[in-house]
């Protein structure tokens, strides 16, 4: 099973830091993503783009995790040469993760 079958996500950016929210469709699946989608696993999965650490925050009442990815945007929207300078599409690749 892939993450997008049980959860949705949105990416935001501030400077060279990206954040990705991961939100389950059904609250009953929260414990599953809480267990399986660790900060380390996210860093491995998006490893090619995330140069810094990954931190995870938990919001159980919303069925949501928030990942903060440091040094993930090639310098950030005001200086990156990446085509997706905001890293907007990163959340879609997180949802490709098998669990």
């Amino acid at each position: 099973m892939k993450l997008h079958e049980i959860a949705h996500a949105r990416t935001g950016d501030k400077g060279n830091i990206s954040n990705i929210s991961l939100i389950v469709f059904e609250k009953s699946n929260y414990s599953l993503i809480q267990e399986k989608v660790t900060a380390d696993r996210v860093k491995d999965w998006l490893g090619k783009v995330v140069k810094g650490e990954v931190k995870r925050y938990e919001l159980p009442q919303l069925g949501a995790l928030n990942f903060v990815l440091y040094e993930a945007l090639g310098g950030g929207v005001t200086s990156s040469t990446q085509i997706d300078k905001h890293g907007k599409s990163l959340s879609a690749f997180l949802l490709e993760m098998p669990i």
Partner: protein
Amino acid sequence: MKKIRIGGGAGYGGDRLEPALKLLEEGNLDYICFECLAERTIALAQKEKKSDPKKGYNHLLEYRMGAILPILKGKKTKVISNMGAANPFQAMKVTQEIARKMGIKGLKIAAVLGDDVLDTIRQSLYLPILETGKPLSTIEPQIISANAYIGVGGIVEALKNGADIILTGRVSDPSLFLAPMIYEFGWKMDDFEKLGKGTMIGHLLECAGQVSGGYFADLNRKAVPDLWDLGFPFAELEESGDGLISKVTGTGGLINTATCTEQLLYEIHDPAQYLTPDCIADFSKVEFEAIADNCVRFSKATGKEATDTYKVSVGYSNGYAGEGQISYGGHDCIARARLAAEIVKKRLEKLSLQDVRLDIIGLNSISPMETEPKDLQEVRLRVCAKADNFEKARHIGQEVETLYTNGPYGGGGVSQHVEEIISVASVLLPKSAVNIHVEYLNT
């Protein structure tokens, strides 16, 4: 019980106007706020103002005001916007002029000034850049602009003085929405729980359509009805700072707990520590409850005392980016695009460019994955890099274009582009070093 309605009229500088007009006409709003200023936009606006002192405000100001002002006639709705960008004073004058031409009398227009701290920053070059830790002096010759993210103060003052339209420069996005709550409900500036709640509401509304079904639609589980006719959101608030978020009946889009949760966490790091000039908002315990179709009740945001500094965005000139693209199709198109990339890379080597990207669009331009599809029928090579001068940057696109006659078989559809890079560095400035004041014009 007193309730007020605040609408989100724009989520960025170039946003659509039609949904904002619909919201103004049918939303029974007390306030509509247009958030139109991204991190870098103000540096570009400052450059514009430097070459023409009558410019430097949002490019769509005339277009928006021309459509908004006639609707405001006979309505109670007040307008708050950071469309002033680098030149709120001129934005106020332009708005007055538009109102006069339309024969609209009795409007009080305010401009909040003081966020431009370039002179102060030039005297404070020892300040460390938050992103790199190096002092500002390392980028001193390239500095173009410096604007502090100021809070609600100037807007609340303008409301107290009876302003109907308030134009600002760099104000923290949620502060645009928090200010009318403070004014209407008489919240104290040290009631941080209320300021935290108001900041959360501002954060939900500041991207307009992004909470009402925009940037959400996905097949199957995330279907959004009539997305083409996306309606913008409004919040209906109680004195307690709790309330609901909804949109005009009959518009497209979707508001449910999922759209609200995506927007709540948008551009948030630690949800318990969202730093604004007004407070440190805490979203970590926020709850959403769907109480009707497209209507969600929110509660349990809170906040703590703000820090004693403003974040300042320092815009600086950071060289040039050059880019060229070319498409390949049919058999072995990926291999030919890769050969083209290799050729361009070698031809550009002597220029010592930085951050060179050799993307194959369709394969790895946005994807961090290592997998490779076998059956692509077309791909597009994109070469992009930074150079320290315009001429070198221009050469990048040139070396892609010359692939027509000097590269692999079958390349087509070349485009090329050069732009100056305006980057942003952040520093913290003591609040006491910033003087905010408000100017007014009447019609």
